[in-house]
């Protein structure tokens, strides 16, 4: 089954899920906190292929969840089914501050080159703006945990600086002020470790704390990435990702999300 699949035979979203699942390999036996959508699909794929002892937790107060089928509701019975204990939402989500989770996922509407994520408003909060979903648990996860940010790769979503910092990245807001400071200055643990899009994986430069392209998905051109990124992206360290394997796509399609609930394909 170690057989590569051509780029035409899977979708960009499927590629994103596979690369995230591979990243989770190093977290086998450890704890992830995840929301609904791609993260839960990737976590399940990882559990099947790369990290059988991965403990999946959800901000629903459900610990070590089993996911008999891909859930639509983050708070429904597929989440609590045969989990270890079903307590209240605080019990699980406060685990971010306790340092219980080794890795977490963040989505949103905008991410900037410092890994700050915006899921609150697009535009000027005090002036014209469009309202988004709100933080949910994203701020709680992002303040304390190493995070993987998942975002569609579009110019208006991968931006120079977010309109509103919902989830702090590497250069974020000093509390009770408008000032931008280094995350470390605030004493926050964790921080974004990668941004996964439908085109590539970005990581953060240790010095500048700016995102650079680390892995380009097979079949994607550098130009596509440049033209879809809202800032001057560093591609100097970019390499093409290991090809997607047949077993990865088949496990994803046949076992993880057979009904294509999340429309990955």
């Amino acid at each position, binding site marked *: 089954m170690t057989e590569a699949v051509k780029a035409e035979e899977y979708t960009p979203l499927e590629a994103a899920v596979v690369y995230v699942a591979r990243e989770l390999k190093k977290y086998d036996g450890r704890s992830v906190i995840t929301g*609904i*959508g791609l993260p839960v699909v990737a976590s399940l794929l990882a559990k099947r292929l790369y990290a059988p002892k991965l403990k999946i937790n959800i*901000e*629903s*107060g*459900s610990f070590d969840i089993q996911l*008999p*089928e891909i859930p*639509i*509701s*983050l*708070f*429904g*019975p*597929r*989440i*609590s*089914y045969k989990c270890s204990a*079903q*307590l*209240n*939402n*605080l019990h699980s*989500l*406060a685990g*971010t*501050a306790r340092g219980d989770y080794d890795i977490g996922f963040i989505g949103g509407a905008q991410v900037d080159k410092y890994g700050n994520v915006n899921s*609150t408003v697009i535009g000027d*909060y*005090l002036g014209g703006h469009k*309202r*988004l*979903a*709100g*933080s*949910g*648990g*994203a*701020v*709680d996860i*992002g*303040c*304390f945990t190493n995070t993987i940010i998942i975002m569609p790769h579009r110019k208006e979503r991968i931006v120079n600086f977010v309109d*509103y*910092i*919902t*989830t*702090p990245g590497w250069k*974020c*807001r000093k*509390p*009770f*002020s*408008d000032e931008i400071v280094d*995350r470390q200055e*605030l*004493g*926050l643990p964790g921080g974004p470790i990668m941004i996964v899009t439908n085109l590539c994986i970005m990581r953060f430069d240790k010095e500048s704390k700016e995102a650079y392209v680390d892995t380009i998905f097979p079949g994607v051109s550098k130009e596509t990435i440049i033209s879809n990124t809202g800032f001057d992206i560093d591609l100097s360290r970019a390499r093409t990702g290991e090809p997607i394997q047949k077993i990865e796509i088949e496990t994803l399609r046949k076992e993880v999300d057979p*009904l294509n*609930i999340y429309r990955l394909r």
Partner: protein
Amino acid sequence: MSDKIVSLEEAVREIQNGDIVFIGGVLDSRVPMAAIYEMIRQGKKDLIGLSILALEDPAVGAGCISAFIGCYAWLGAFGKAPCIARKYENGELIIEDLGHNDSLLIYMSAFGLSSVASNYSIGSDLLNLKYSKLDKIREIARNKEKIPKVKYAKIEDPFFGGERVLLPTIKPDVAVIHVQQVGTEGTCRIFGVEGVDTLAAFAADKVIVTAEEIVPEDYLREDPNRNSIPCTQVDMIVEVPWGAHPSVVSHYYDLDIEFIIDYVKRASTQEDFEEWLEEWVFSVENHEGYLNKLGIERLESLRAVKGYGFRPRTWLRR
């Protein structure tokens, strides 16, 4: 039988305009929809929602809920909440943004706490007080003293050093909670995700419980460790089978996906939404009418399978 058992209409009459209302369940799970529809029928105004606003969307569209203090106002996998988005854009819904932990920690009033200190939301614009809308929310609140003077405060930590963020707690005027089973005296048993219903039931001044089933109190008392809310905290009980439709009720029924998708589509303009409202809320008169309109076949197709607590997607109806 306890005199706590009342009709849905009577129970919802207890909610007053301008009340801070805890609505139980989370997002699309165990939301007290029958009570929400009844709030709409009774024309409630200026209610202040808490924590998460999602399937409560029609109550926003109908003008019952006009403020929200919480972390999330969206329909999860179903995307934008149409009425919430529209009312917000029109300035008819005020939102005070919090993180998820903070939007739950506000119920620490349940434990007699007036504020709590943490590092939550540090680095985020959530702590940027210039964005706070509490003053506007206080204007519509019936009990103005329950709305904190400021959203957060910064304190020097006298115990461990450094700075902390102090978050005020809130006491809801009323909690409306839908549970799977309630005993005749008011003891509640919840299956699946709890949210923070237990905590909020202790925090609120008044607690209204709607339930899939009223069961003998003795039955629940065989295992008090399994119960979620004690009878001493519950003021009113209403039996409302399928009372959280179209949300999901663990061990009872699944999410009515089609219903929600249809709602989202039809509620995208105020005019169409009002038509939807007429069809599903006003013209049906009460919850029984709503269920009849849904029809038994549709309801049965949602019924959870024992042993799973949900209906597996590959299970066909017999």
